[in-house]
């Protein structure tokens, strides 16, 4: 299984090149190649999980074999563990659905081969970031995904799109510089770039606390901006709604999680160490940022009438849930946070896609000009309603279970105040999405929409599929999903049993050098 790890990056990268090469001669090849690549990634990710479920360890590490003299030097290390695997599956799943949705949706845009090339580049960057075993490769893959996303936000080439992309690029560049300086500081104080090796040195207490603190602050700032935490969120409500609907779904559903949440979890838990001397202050910072994002995002979202902008503010707020769960610094907290991140990818992906469908049906994104869509567009309405119930946290949808787990984790960690903030946010989210449903799906159909038609099946089925997965995700939690997410959490956070998570990650990487 280890040998297929580099394919997770190479397949989408190759697909991007094919899309560009075939741009002039065979523009129709781009969607086919992209879909085939996404489905191949999905099959590979599922295969990894099936192997993981059959008892064998899901984990593996791969590296270019450079032979420097006699010693084996691991080159570009790619490491697959439970945490990476769950994100790989998520990226493959959502991107496949998004590509199917885009087949018809993108009809109204020019330069579709370029769209597919950038989309594949985005997928390659995200997969690479999730698999990267050293800090600099993590940075490079983050940049690949980011640059593709800047260009995709501007893809509509309207005034609004380009301005949003410019602002996103400006702040993204500052974030990247901050991450790179953080990498430099860790390299200066350890002489290493491999995350597992740096983690071992930090755990042994061989790194000065000042350097660690500086690096942690720079990573928190840089990755926090990529994850749109509240003081660094200004770009998101412009950038995410400006992109074409499939890209909004990719950005909100996947990008802020793979570049933001995954990288934060990996760096804070494995490299810097939440049990180390900085653990307490990092925990406080995560909790404060999480609470501010949760409450701020949902309050700003309440007043929005633009459907996509409202969804973007809720992305900030839902990322806040994930952050406070990570800040609980327990195995249950990390598991609940990851479960919520997975759920958010499913329901926010569905909601952004359905916002695209609704815009196609009604010609507007303004919620106050919609109404009664359940009558004219039943398929889209059912999918939207399912996803909205899920983000609102209505049982038995998955959003309910992950929010409940987060509350339990916060109470167990002795943080009732944070739990109360999370509960308030959950109620406000429910209020907000009840309003959305009432305004868009039910109520009176405006006269001008009386002849409106539902979108083609290739656009309504993806939304329905994601909504169905939201429902299944909730029902599956006790039936196996808890093991998958639990493994992912146990990969970074020591659970109740005597498993030292960062140490097992280090062992995984160190076994590389001892391969025959």
């Amino acid at each position, binding site marked *: 299984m280890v040998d297929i790890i580099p394919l997770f990056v190479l397949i989408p990268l190759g697909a991007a090149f094919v899309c560009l090469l075939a741009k002039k001669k065979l523009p129709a090849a781009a969607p086919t190649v992209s879909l085939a690549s996404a489905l191949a990634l999905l099959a590979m990710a599922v295969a990894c999980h099936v192997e993981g479920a059959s008892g064998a360890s899901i984990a593996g590490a791969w590296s270019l074999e450079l032979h420097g003299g006699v010693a084996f030097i691991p080159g570009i290390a790619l490491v697959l563990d439970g945490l990476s695997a769950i994100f790989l599956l998520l990226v493959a799943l959502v991107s496949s659905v998004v590509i199917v949705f885009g087949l018809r949706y993108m009809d109204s845009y020019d330069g579709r081969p370029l769209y597919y090339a950038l989309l594949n580049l985005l997928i390659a960057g995200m997969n690479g970031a999730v698999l990267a075993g050293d800090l*600099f490769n993590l940075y*490079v893959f983050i*940049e690949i995904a980011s*640059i593709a996303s*800047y*260009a995709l936000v*501007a893809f509509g*080439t309207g*005034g*609004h799109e*380009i*301005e*949003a*992309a*410019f*602002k996103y*690029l*400006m702040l993204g*560049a*500052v974030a*990247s*510089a901050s991450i*790179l*300086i953080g*990498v*430099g500081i860790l*390299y*200066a104080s350890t002489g290493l*770039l491999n995350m597992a090796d740096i983690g071992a040195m930090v755990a042994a207490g061989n790194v000065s606390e000042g350097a660690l603190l500086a690096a942690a602050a720079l990573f928190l700032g840089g990755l926090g901006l990529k994850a749109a935490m509240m003081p660094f969120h*200004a770009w998101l*409500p*412009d950038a995410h709604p400006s992109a074409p609907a499939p890209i909004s779904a990719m950005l909100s559903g996947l990008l802020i999680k793979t570049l933001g949440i995954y990288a934060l979890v990996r760096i804070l838990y494995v490299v810097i160490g939440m049990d180390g001397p900085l653990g307490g202050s990092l925990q406080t910072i995560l909790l404060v940022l999480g609470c501010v994002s949760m409450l701020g995002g949902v309050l700003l979202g309440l007043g929005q009438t633009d459907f996509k902008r409202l969804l973007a503010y809720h992305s900030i707020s839902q990322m806040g849930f994930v952050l406070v769960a990570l800040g609980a610094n327990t195995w249950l907290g990390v598991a609940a946070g990851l479960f919520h991140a997975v759920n958010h990818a499913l329901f926010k992906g569905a909601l952004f896609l359905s916002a695209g469908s609704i815009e196609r049906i009604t010609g507007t994104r303004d919620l106050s000009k919609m109404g009664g869509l359940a009558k004219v567009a039943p398929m889209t309405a059912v999918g939207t309603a399912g996803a909205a119930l899920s983000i609102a946290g209505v049982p038995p949808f998955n959003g309910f279970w992950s929010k409940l787990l987060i509350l339990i984790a916060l109470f167990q960690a002795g943080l009732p105040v944070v739990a109360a903030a999370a509960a308030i946010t959950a109620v406000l989210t429910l209020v907000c999405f009840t309003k959305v449903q009432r305004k868009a799906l039910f109520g009176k159909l405006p006269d001008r929409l009386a002849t409106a038609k539902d979108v083609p099946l290739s656009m309504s089925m993806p939304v329905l599929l994601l909504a169905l997965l939201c429902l299944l995700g909730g029902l599956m939690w006790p039936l196996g999903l808890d093991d998958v997410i639990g493994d992912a959490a146990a990969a970074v956070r020591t659970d109740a049993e005597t498993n030292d998570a960062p140490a097992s990650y280090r062992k995984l990487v160190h076994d590389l050098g001892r391969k025959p």
Partner: protein
Amino acid sequence: MMMYALAAVLLGVGLYGLLVKRHLLKKVLGLLIVEHAVNLFLIQLGYIDGGIAPIRTAGEEAAAFVGNAVDPLPQVLVLTSIVIGLGLAMLMVALTLRIYQRYGSLDADRMSELKG
């Protein structure tokens, strides 16, 4: 130490240009300065006073070579980072051009479509 201070000053100048200045070209220049500041910082991590280039010639004593040569790894990082920076700068210039074509102005205050 002087050079680290220079990198810090450059970083400050670049961030000022990028985030405070309202002229889009000044923002682009700010981005370039930020990138160079970071590169300057990285390249110094491997520098040793009077060090030689990290290319080992035949017959050179390994221990002496390792003692004298500068650390090649930061140089590799900076090369990669320059390429990434080039991509970012090109994209930013392309967006600036589009904005100019659309509004006939490079003043960020005249771009009214965004609220935040």
